[in-house]
């Protein structure tokens, strides 16, 4: 029961990867998924950047349940638009 987690920008650099699989068992809140990723990458654990979450390319709240096969994006503050 795994979900795919996407990391971007500074988070991607700190982790040294853009993508990681996380065991979500019967389902986990998005913020709990991120906590597990932080445990896997100490550089992320000490990182103070606030984040938002998207599941399957839609913004969701931190409590949104993540299940098998979901794609979870950890979204640091955005700066599109130039």
């Amino acid at each position, binding site marked *: 029961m795994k979900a795919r987690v996407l990391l971007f920008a500074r988070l991607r650099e700190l982790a040294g990867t853009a993508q990681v699989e996380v065991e979500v068992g019967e389902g986990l809140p998005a913020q709990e998924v991120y906590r597990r990723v932080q445990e896997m990458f100490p550089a992320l654990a000490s990182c103070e950047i606030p984040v938002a979450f998207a599941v399957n*390319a839609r*913004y969701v709240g931190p409590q949104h349940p993540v299940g098998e096969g979901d794609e979870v994006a950890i979204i640091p503050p*955005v*700066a599109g*638009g*130039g």
Partner: protein
Amino acid sequence: MLFRVTPQPLNVEESIKAVSHPSTGAVVVFLGVVRGHNLGRRVIQLHYEAYSEMAQKVMEELAQEAQERFGLKDVAILHRIGTLQVGDISLVVAVSSPHRKEAFRAGEWLVDCLKERLPIWKKEVFEGGEEWIEGTLPLTG
């Protein structure tokens, strides 16, 4: 409707053509351009990174909301990613409407929303260093 996240240079004419129809009296186009200075530093280049699949969806949703709110005829949104130099266009937002007032209102509203919600990030390379520019944390559910 035209939505695109691309490493290629953005084509303004294409965005205008995409929103032009016989019932269109007004087209407003916004261009975001890479500035040579930011925060008092001399900018050398920018690297844009996107969650492209989601950025495209966010573009579509915001465009639809703008159409409903402002009675727009059509919308085109293009965002460039990858390495951009000073003077390069990073964002094109084109809206068309029967009348101009709505086109200006909608264009500004859309650009504001895109900056708050597009999952796109930029790293600024300036004289003496580089830094991820952290803008807005998107509001969510």
